[in-house]
């Protein structure tokens, strides 16, 4: 049994169709794409999995385009109930209170663009900060030699075991004493510098980089800072990108910490602003259409991110997995 020697050959579509047990067949002849039961089964299973995965997303779209006030009367309808753009208008603040109420919305309005701006600022700053600082820390833990390094790293790893809920109170007190409640820096700071996971993730990768290149650079008189930025970072662009994307998604979806720190609309990210579509009174119903419309809009940037970088993420995860 031969295994395709390099990852490049795998990308060749013909190779994927070729049976792996080429020993018996000798030189491989171009395979006819014949019908087989196995192939059909594979397609059916794939199709089913796709359906199961994508159906909730479709349901979200269907609900977002429904009229909230009649939605509950037709819970099983596969198509939007009384198709309307109303929910999106409510989300974008384009609908009057009367219209919103008539469609099952609330009397409250939401500043979508402000929340979007906040989300973008929070996620971008955290992503840039966390990726940069984690990479620097990982470099120190993997390539530099200093006394007590492994002990410090061990302690650092132990921090991975502490559930975030335990740190939220001390963090909250700190942020409060710094006077940063209800501000964007208050939301960003606890996540800005690093997380044990990010450092661990990058350290594992950095450990596998070749020593020779680094030593050559040292002989040429390059400083550690220069080596880090000119050698290590470019050589590790794939895992760093992966980390950045994962960090961005995590900060985009963060809910608990902003809930504690940001109470004013001025500092609320999208996840908090969504609260306006939850039930506003005890026993009241959520504005499902509005909630789904806003969730859809809030998820768009992440979807676009995946469209742009999805292949890269998958590749880099495979890559680091092989390492």
């Amino acid at each position, binding site marked *: 049994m031969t295994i395709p020697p390099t990852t490049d050959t795998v990308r060749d579509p013909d190779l994927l169709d070729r049976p792996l047990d080429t020993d018996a067949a000798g030189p491989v002849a171009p395979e006819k794409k014949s019908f087989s039961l196995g192939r059909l089964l594979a397609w059916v299973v794939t199709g089913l999995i796709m359906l199961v995965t994508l159906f909730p997303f479709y349901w979200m779209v269907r609900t977002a385009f429904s009229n909230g006030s009649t939605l509950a*009367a037709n819970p099983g309808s596969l198509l939007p109930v009384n198709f309307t753009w109303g929910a999106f208008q409510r989300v974008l603040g384009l609908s009057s209170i009367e219209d919103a109420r008539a469609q099952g919305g609330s009397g409250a309005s939401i500043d979508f663009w402000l929340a979007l701006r906040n989300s973008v600022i929070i996620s971008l700053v955290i992503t840039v900060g966390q990726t940069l600082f984690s990479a620097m820390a990982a470099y120190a833990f993997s390539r530099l030699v200093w006394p007590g390094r492994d002990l410090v790293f061990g302690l650092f790893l132990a921090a991975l075991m502490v559930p975030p809920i335990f740190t939220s109170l001390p963090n909250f007190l700190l942020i409060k004493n710094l006077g940063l409640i209800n501000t964007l820096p208050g939301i960003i700071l606890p996540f800005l510098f690093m997380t044990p996971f990010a450092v661990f993730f990058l350290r594992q990768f950095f450990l596998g980089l070749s020593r020779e290149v680094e030593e050559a650079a040292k002989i040429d008189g390059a400083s550690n800072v220069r080596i880090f930025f000119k050698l290590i970072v470019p050589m590790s662009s794939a895992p760093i990108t992966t980390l950045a994307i994962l960090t961005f998604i995590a900060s985009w979806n963060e809910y608990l910490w902003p809930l504690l720190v940001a*109470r004013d609309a001025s500092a609320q990210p999208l996840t908090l602003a969504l609260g306006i579509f939850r039930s506003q009174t*005890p026993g*009241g*119903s959520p504005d499902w259409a509005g909630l789904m419309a806003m969730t859809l809009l809030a998820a768009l940037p992440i979807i676009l991110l995946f469209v742009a970088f999805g292949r890269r993420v998958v590749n880099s995860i495979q890559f680091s997995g092989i390492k």
Partner: protein
Amino acid sequence: MKRSRRSFAAIVAGGAAVALALTACGGGSSDTAGSTVASVGGAQTAAAGGDVNGTIEYWLWDSLQLPAYQECADAFAKKYPGAKVNITQYGWDDYWAKVNNGFTSGTGPDVFTDHLSKYPEFVNKQYILNLTDALKADGADKDIYQKGLLSLWTAQDGGIYGLPKDFDTIAMFYNEDMLKAAGYTDADVQNLTWNATDGGTFEKFIAHMTIDNNGVRGDEPGFDKANVKTYGFGQENLTDGVGQTQWSPFTGSNGWDYTNVNPWGTQFNYGDDKFAETMAFYKSLSDKGYSPTIDKTVGVDTGTQLAAGTFATVFEGSWNTSSYLSKGVNLKIAPTPVGPSGKRASMFNGLADSVNAASKNQPTAVKWVEFTGSQECQDLVAAQAVVFPAIPESTTKAEDAFKAKGIDMSGFTVQVKDGTTFLTPITDHAADVTALMAPALQAYMGGQADASSFKDVNDQVNALFK
């Protein structure tokens, strides 16, 4: 309004955790949180007098009431040039966590909409101001409210901690189309009765309103209670020991009350036979298939189920009327059934605004509370037809406003007219009582415990007050 829902436990737990931790390690914080450890009797009193100006922050949770209070805020600003009220609204599910968080972190509002189940704790912790002296100094008329409402907001120390804004009662929403299809008229459901022996006309009614997947009604032979399409009576998940929109209309009309005295009772009566008897009746409705069993009530939003035709009737509070009636089905309102006591019963509840003890602009905050408790503001609220204002004249105006929208609210107001309301239990340790009672009730409804378990849990509840 009512004190509990699906997320109540989560809110209480979250809020309590934050409060607890902050008080425990908040020795160094100088402002509001510093004064959290306090005893009853040493309440802070609102400073009377002072200039009414500057901007104050005001929080409320009901988005449907937001436009009305915005109008009040505009009128207030007109009355006191230089003063401004900045309103922030958070949905019920987030509200209490934010209020608790605001108290402990010193970032709370100046004035907030308070709830009867929460304010005893706030009084104990000196989070909110005693308004008595300020009201006296300003000559605010305290006798204008519906009878009994102001006494709800008078704490054990005799201080007034909020001025009533509105009141609410419970009624039965029903799907009129289903009712007609079942051969009933609107008049038939105005005076239903229930009893613990044979369920009375109420049980007959909901049995007939129940339809299984084969189209067989609950009172017909061959009814399949395991596969019900429409439940005659929608129940909610039991998340506290009050059951405001769940079982309280039954316990109330069976002559049972929560505590030895109310407000400020110190002995609960969950061990009473009448309570066990009423809960047995309540559970029997699910056992017979006329109501969903408790596992089918978790995470269920009764309004949606009513609109979807899964429920034919539900008990619900007056505050949700407009959102229920805009659901695209033909809903009407009937009073809750008459019980063994010979009367119907509804919990009588109401909201008030309280002043944060940490407010830096107390004179304006107190004036705003007086204003939301005045007829001028309550008339504006009445015109929106969302809730019943606390002042009788404004209540009448609200009824007219509902009528103008084609909504007959008499199912709610009949309880006030006939004097069949009972007060929501106001006690200390409300969160602890919930923590004990919610699981006990769920275990009973789920069949894991029998009615005798209420006696044990009642002992635990009463031990909180020792």
